[in-house]
């Protein structure tokens, strides 16, 4: 193929990438919109780095208490992400001044109280139904707390079915 044509194709490809990416960002569901609403905690799992099954059990029992004490404020039960950027929980009185922010490429959930960061979670999965957050902890051992949340409407439907 003629090289002049190839150069023009390069420019065209660049324009397509720029416009295409911008259109997807504009029209696809952003994590900031997806997260708004009520989410019910369905699971808190501890995952320690390189842990054997026996160690895993010890982590689960021994450290769980200590870790949960450290993140007690975040053990909300129901997480209500308001559109104005505040995080509330009907089951917790402490959460009234927590603000939430989505950062990075939409993969970090930052929680602040009085302008100071209290925790940053990695958003591992987010869709209409499910929100999975990872929280790195470094207490006696390094590891991850996985918090699984389900949108309240879906969670209620499931409970009604049962």
């Amino acid at each position, binding site marked *: 193929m003629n090289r002049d044509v190839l150069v023009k194709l390069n420019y065209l490809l660049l324009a397509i990438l720029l416009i295409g990416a911008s259109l997807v960002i504009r029209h696809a*569901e952003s994590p*900031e919109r997806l997260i708004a609403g009520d989410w019910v905690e369905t699971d808190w799992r501890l995952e320690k780095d390189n842990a054997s099954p026996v160690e895993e059990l010890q982590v689960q029992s021994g450290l769980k208490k200590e870790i949960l004490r450290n993140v007690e404020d975040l053990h909300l039960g129901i997480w209500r992400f308001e559109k104005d950027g505040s995080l509330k929980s009907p089951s917790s009185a402490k959460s009234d001044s927590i603000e939430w922010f989505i950062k990075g490429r*939409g993969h970090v959930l930052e929680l602040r109280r009085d302008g100071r960061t209290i925790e940053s979670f990695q958003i591992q999965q987010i869709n209409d139904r499910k929100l999975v957050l990872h929280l790195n902890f470094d207490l006696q051992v390094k590891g991850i707390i996985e918090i699984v949340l389900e949108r309240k409407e879906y969670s209620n439907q499931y409970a009604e079915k049962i």
Partner: protein
Amino acid sequence: MLRKYSNHRTQSDNVKLGALTAFSAGMVNVTSVTVFFAFTSNITGYYAVLAQEVSKGNWYQGAVVLLWITLFFLGSFLSNLVIIQGKGRWSQYISHAIPVILELLSILFVGIYLEFFYQNSLKETEILVGALLFAMGLQNGLTASISNSVVKTTHLTGLTTDLAILVSMFSKRENRHNQGLVNKFHLLLSIMMSYVAGGLFGGIGYLYFQNGVFYLTCVILMVIAFYDFYKIGRVKRLFERRKREVLVQDS
């Protein structure tokens, strides 16, 4: 530092340019991670993240990463375009200084926006990180282009590989006495150390100056852009003084 091109550049020109630009890149990168949770000179990583997000079906996050990579590309493209199209139209120094000025403006825009308008929304974060990646693209494009790809200040994967190769080459006595290899080692080492120092300065500086770190980066970029302007002026003044002295002696 900026006015010479390719093989006409001295070791000192490359070390000064490499160290100062790497320092500013390190500052920008660490500050961006602190403020936005996003790297601004980690293009290799972003290619992997792009593939990961697409494979997980996260189209939105994938598109954001694709946009960032494209903006870095656009920065490097624009940088070299100004350099090669400026040849013959204006002085070499000006065509090399324009990408630095554009980079400075991009970083200044981020600093000012953060200071006065930032609402912590995701959309703003994406645009501001995009502006920083565009700035890093401009910088990497400029340094690589004018130094014949000897200086690359945001590409530490390649730099670490080159350093490792050089260190292994120095296991042979004749290579240890090869001035070219020794110069290259000094250059790469100064870039690496400046990048780390810039990162440390950015991280610690953020605790004291917050968004002011971006203004400090702009000051470093101004030094890079106007250093040769000052040097050319000094050489001109010296030349005119000598000329006057010769005329006085002749008369």
